[in-house]
């Protein structure tokens, strides 16, 4: 079972992905550990396309739901659906692509999303501190980086500016 950082701890992940981002599975997690056995999974994180085309069926399926978004995803397509999602995963195609930091902040701040906000994709452990401050409370990193990523959550002891994630539990 894959491990993730969540609320400051390294924990097992009980979510499966449906139609995950291309490159995510192969590059950023160990393939074998990617999928949680179906009987143990608590829900599925689906793509935006999948959600838009299968909305009715997914809502009827009685499983917990999550959705993954990209930096350029049009939030207006799902704003009214946010209460259906326990998890929103934001995909970072490259660690230098900082759109996800703003997307996460918008979800928390402008749209008051209360569920799990999870960063997935190409991330450096060095970015955990910033991710947490942008409202993320979970992140997937390469397995070898997990411990270091968790430690990086305490890189700084003070902040100059307000940010939406400051009142959240630790990432």
């Amino acid at each position, binding site marked *: 079972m894959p491990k993730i950082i969540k609320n400051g701890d390294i924990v097992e992940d009980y979510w499966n992905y449906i139609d995950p981002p291309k490159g995510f599975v192969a590059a950023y997690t160990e393939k074998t550990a990617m999928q949680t056995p179906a009987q143990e999974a608590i829900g599925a994180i689906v793509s935006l396309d999948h959600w838009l085309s299968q909305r009715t069926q997914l809502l009827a399926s009685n499983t917990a739901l999550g959705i993954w978004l990209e*930096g*350029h995803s049009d939030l207006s397509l799902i704003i009214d659906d946010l209460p259906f999602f326990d998890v929103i995963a934001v995909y970072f195609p490259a*660690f*230098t*692509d*900082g*759109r996800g*930091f*703003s*997307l996460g*902040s*918008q979800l928390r*701040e*402008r749209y008051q999303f209360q569920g799990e906000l999870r960063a997935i994709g190409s991330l*450096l452990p*060095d*970015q955990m*501190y*910033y*991710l*947490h*401050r*942008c409202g993320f409370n979970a992140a997937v990193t390469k397995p070898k980086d997990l411990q270091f990523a968790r430690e990086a959550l305490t*890189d*700084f*002891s*003070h*902040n*100059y*500016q*307000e*940010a*939406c*994630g400051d009142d959240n539990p630790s990432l």
Partner: protein
Amino acid sequence: MYLYDKYDHKLVQERVEQFERQTERFITGDLTDEQFLPLRLQNGLYIQRHAPMLRIAVPYGMLRTEQLKKMAHICRSYDKGYCHITTRQNLQLNWPSIKDVPSILSELAHVEMHAIQTSGNCIRNITSDPLAGVAPDEIVDSRPYCEIVRQWSTLHPEFAFLPRKFKIAISGSTTDRAATAFHDIGLQLIKDKNGAVGCKVLVGGGLGRTPIIASTVCDFLPEQFLLSYLCAILRVYNRLGRRDNKYKARIKILVKEMGIADFSQAVEQEWQHIKDNYSPLTPKDITQAQGYFSTPPYQQINASTTGEQLDHLALKHPEFGRWLQRNVNHHKVPGYRAVTLSLKPTGNAPGDISAEQLETVAYLAEHFSFGEVRTTHQQNIVLADVNSNELFTFWQYAQSAGFATPNIGTLTDIICCPGGDFCALANAKSIPIAEKIQSTYDDIDYLYDLGDISLNISGCMNACAHHHVANIGILGVDKKGKEFYQVTLGGNNNSRGATNHKPAIGKVLGKAFPANEIPNVIDCVLTTYLQHRIEEDAFLESFLDTYKRIGMPTFKENVYA
């Protein structure tokens, strides 16, 4: 001047430690070149043509004596005995070795300096008016707002991986000496009719490959909303700015592609949602920030008596008179003056300053200007609070240290990037061109006759020397592996002496020239100006005004004749 509190010290220290860990991981192979690159850039470390380059932040250009002395020490111990003042008021070391960088950063931290966010795709050092707090035409002192924005933008979690670099300039006077129209965001502090402070917010200005004058996104933003509004602009840019092509990734391109109306609407929408989530800047916050820049203990001076004495000295010592005329600015406190030390004597790479000179500046600041100095966008140094009764003595010191060339605002006060001699991006050398022009126009009388004129030289399209906005701009270009120079005329960024201060981007004169033809070309341009300018009694029409009146064709005919 702003002094660190315990949080600033802690944060800079933690940043140094974080960077040490990152460097170690890079050395052990845990971080790849590609991964380490943005991390080191955001700590000011470039890899250049001959050596690494370390860019050190000078927030809104302000330095105090102990910092100048520390820089002198660093230049001697870790570099070749000099450093360089950039067009964004920062300091650069051109020859440090990578292994020394952590020690340099640690030494800098002792005097409240660092290299955080001086490079990379993040919010860069805030730049401002070097005469902030002392200019007679000041509406609002910009320094407290600069400090507020500096703190807000430092290690901002949301904006450390933007599509491209992001530069903010703040001015607070009727004359914009901070080039706000040529920044990603320009803030012009103003007062409304009730005296409430706010700012006009400009967005999407910039030079580089696509020079654009900024558009106004908000005519009057009340000061209390400054930070949430900046957040809204940056957020719109961060989400929508192009990331597919680095040359189209600046906010100016987004504003151009969306149109200012749609862009403003997107910002307004975002801001309406978030403005109540952030604490507004309270009068207490502003007063506290103003407290960092309290008025120094000025003496009571009889301005009219000192004025007479200065006139007398100027007659007796013409060189002093010229210096007064060109290098000395009026001050809002009677009897005080703001003095510019010229870093542009002939033979000196514009903006370069040696360790000995840094120490001299520290000495002058300590004895004549309450221990503070400001670096300028024009790559000079301003001592903002000099007592006029001491100006003559000051001038003698400045002269013996080589700082008193009375050429501020003249042809030889050249803004010049490091160019092909140092910079890995450059297409052509820029310093030798500057030196050639300086030595050709060494005659002070001729320079004075030419009057106010700006000449900037950039070694490539990135336009670090802002050649587009100079009255005469020179741009290095590469033609089949050879260095050529394109000349532009008519740019304007608050040009001294011009009747119209509207910012303008220069137009290309014609085909580019090889280096050896540049002096002749400049000579033709200047001769054309002198032939056509209006001269009535004491009035001499400025270069820019003459250019606007007679137009490019006349210059073109003469140059390409």
